[in-house]
């Protein structure tokens, strides 16, 4: 019961996020000038694209873009509950199918980048923490921010040039198997690791100067015990918060990497859809990313309860009150 009481507001919050994302995206898309139907027809028709108003109206009706705006808004929103995201105007395929096809590809890269970024940042943090003398540590600390400073576009192309075209270890493109995940995953892991490192290092160095580490050192515990048992554990909590943000970033921020590596994924679909003014696909992507974000946030909140003793105590306290 108490867990439910803890989670219910969070779930409501998630639903609100999805609804708000849908509404804002809907308003923004329809506030843009230009005709999405004409844009979508232009994708297929090229220089033979018809500008005949009758033809346009027929196509508009076909893709649910006719009638007053409020009607389109409601139809689209209630369609969500049936899992119906509409039909792509430029390809004619159901949006749910397009996203369903692309999402696993994006997820594979995102998860790989998340894990690798986490491990890289952790390793680097420990290394920087135990590095002596101080100037070496200072130098090490300066390196990770490069992960964000170098654009993914550039690092991706460098990785392709070296590991695909040069060494031939990994494919330069496509979505075939694990090998195809590695290079785009590494490309995305660099900025991810940089963000994790910032959080880890702040927490770890902070903990390093705190009284309990001083005590642990004074007790004569080995350096590794101190680092792993006390210092790192302290760094976990902020890291989990950042994971939530990183997942949202990765879910939407893969466009560049997917373009460089010619991968079929959510990011590239979004770019194509925006260029073609394929409003149904754009709405679908917004919704799916919002749902992913909401679910991750929910999981992170739940993990808080498991990991952070203070949150657990609040739960128990509430339980006491509720009796």
């Amino acid at each position, binding site marked *: 019961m108490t867990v439910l009481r803890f989670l219910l507001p969070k779930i409501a919050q998630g639903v609100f996020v999805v609804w708000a994302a849908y509404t804002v995206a809907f308003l923004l898309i329809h506030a843009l*000038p*230009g*005709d*999405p139907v*004409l*844009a*979508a*027809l*232009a*994708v*297929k*028709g*090229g*220089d*033979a*694209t*018809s*500008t*005949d*108003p009758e*033809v*346009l109206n*027929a*196509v508009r009706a076909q893709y649910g873009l006719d009638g007053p705006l409020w009607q389109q808004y409601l139809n689209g929103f209630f369609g969500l509950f049936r899992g119906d995201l509409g*039909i792509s105007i*430029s*390809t*004619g*395929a159901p949006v749910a199918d*397009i996203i369903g*096809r*692309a999402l696993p590809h994006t997820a594979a890269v995102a998860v790989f980048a998340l894990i690798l970024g986490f491990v890289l940042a952790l390793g680097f943090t420990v290394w920087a923490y135990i590095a002596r003398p101080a100037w070496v540590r200072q130098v090490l600390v300066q390196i990770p921010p490069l992960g964000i400073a170098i654009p993914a576009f550039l690092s991706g*192309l460098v990785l*392709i*040039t070296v590991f*695909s*075209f*040069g060494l*031939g270890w990994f*494919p*330069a*493109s*496509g*979505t075939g198997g694990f090998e195809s995940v590695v290079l785009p995953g590494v490309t995305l892991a660099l900025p991810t690791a940089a963000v994790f490192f910032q959080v880890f290092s702040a927490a770890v160095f902070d903990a390093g100067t705190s009284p309990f580490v001083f005590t642990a050192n004074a007790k004569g515990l080995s350096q590794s015990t101190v680092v792993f048992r006390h210092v790192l554990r302290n760094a976990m909590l902020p890291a989990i918060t950042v994971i939530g943000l990183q997942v949202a970033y990765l879910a939407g921020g893969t466009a560049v990497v997917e*373009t*460089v*590596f*010619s*991968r*079929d994924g959510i990011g*590239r*679909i979004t770019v*194509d859809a925006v*260029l*073609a*003014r394929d409003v149904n696909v754009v709405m679908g992507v917004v919704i799916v990313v919002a749902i992913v974000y909401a679910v991750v946030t929910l999981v992170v909140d739940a993990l808080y309860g498991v990991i952070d003793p203070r949150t657990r105590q609040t739960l128990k306290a509430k339980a006491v009150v509720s009796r």
Partner: protein
Amino acid sequence: MTTNNHRFVRWASLPAGALVGVLALAGCSGGTETTATPAADADQNIVFALKEDPTCIDPQQTSLTTSLNVGRQIVDSLLDQDPETGELVPWLAESWDVSDDLTSYTFTLQDGVTFSDGTALTSQVVADNFDAIAALGASASLANGYLENYAGTDVTSDTEFTVNFSQPNVQFEQGATTMSLGILSEDTIAATAEERCQSIVGTGAFTLTSYVPNDSVVIDRRDGYDWASELREHEGDAYLETVTFPIITEASVRTGGLTSGEYDVIQDLPYVDEARYTTDEYNLYAQANPGVPNSFVVNTTHGLMGDESVRQAISKGLDRDQINVIAGSVSGSAPTSVLTSSTPGYTDLGDTLAFDPEGAQALLEADGWVLGSDGIYEKDGEKLTVTVTAFYAQDVLEAAQIQLKDVGIDLQLNMVSAGDFFGAIASGDYDMLGAGLTRTDPDVLRVLLSDSSSSQWGITGDDELEALLIEQGQTADADERQTIVDEIQQMVADRAYVIPTLETVQLHASRSGVEGITFDSASRINLYDAMVTSN
């Protein structure tokens, strides 16, 4: 983003037919190889990197170059067109007749042609194809353009049929060579427009094995193929067993992959990389798009464009050779008419379109324009400012902008999305459009400029021109028609209704050892004669 530019270049590069053959380049033997044979020890599988997702494989619906480069291998047409001479030759139809008034076309099909699903090619299937195109409407706008005023097909026997039109239709005969009127199986045309985009069955030398959107297309050789047109270099099955088309949107990855050997052929080599691939290790394939070159297409009812002096001054103020150097392919040349040099019926108007900045200024001054202190002409307090609306080839427009500023004309660029470009056409709200229109027939000028055309871009209000445009479309006699087409080109260039800027070139590259890739009359790739001669 480079990717987007390339995506958009396709609008200029929707190819149709071409008279000029493959432009000879150092080490380029791809187009004309006749002595080569497939190497016995080399496997006949190639990887051909596409520049973008084909989006829709069905050649009747799409007009995207990338998609048609795939579709051409799977789908045959009734007729074929010699890219060198423009001559039409038999393909699926072994003979055909055109009525004098250009309203009915009678075809006789080859015997024994089958679709890859085993069904036979009959007159009824062809009739159903044309009916289906008409039913597709806006989903197949290019194909419906070729079938303008379609009044149905009479099936006289299993191999004979007559296609009827309610008005003379001069473009249909040539249209029958294009993939837009390519023949699909009965099952394919019975499917919905969306299903057809994913999967098609034709009579071609290859069959579609898989299409994974945004990822790749795979085609396999069809055994028992025996109806290639006489323009091909051999008969029987194609040489290549499998062609895999990965979709590689990033140009530098395509070129890198060609260099490293990951791809055997790449579509759309960026012009800036061209020089690197002129060595013996590579074959380059270049062919100018037929039709109207990249141009300013004028709306005489808007802004200053009603003033013929202004239009002519713009035309004279453009140094087209320089634009070609800046924004074009090494293999290309500056436009010398309002049709590209690769279009049947093209007439050289190099003198009319010569770079003449002094002439431009003299024209303007005679028209009452006075050079202002800022170097831009003005009249009655109004600056000589004109706007061009476009959605690709910004580099071409920027080069023109700089050149026109030297003459005293202020060219404003209005770069929009593809949808907004057609939106501007729909509302008529533009001075000039910056784009090319690709077709394999001089009738393209009627499509572009006639009041009655559904793809009218240029607004001239010129009855004299309109009459000629209609007349050439109803003239069956080739010589007579050519005379009218010459007159139209001269008139359109003189009165500057279309102001050409650049001939867009299709540019592809392969490693040496992959030979026999040819362009068809539509500047699209044909892989039937292609082979691997060495690894």
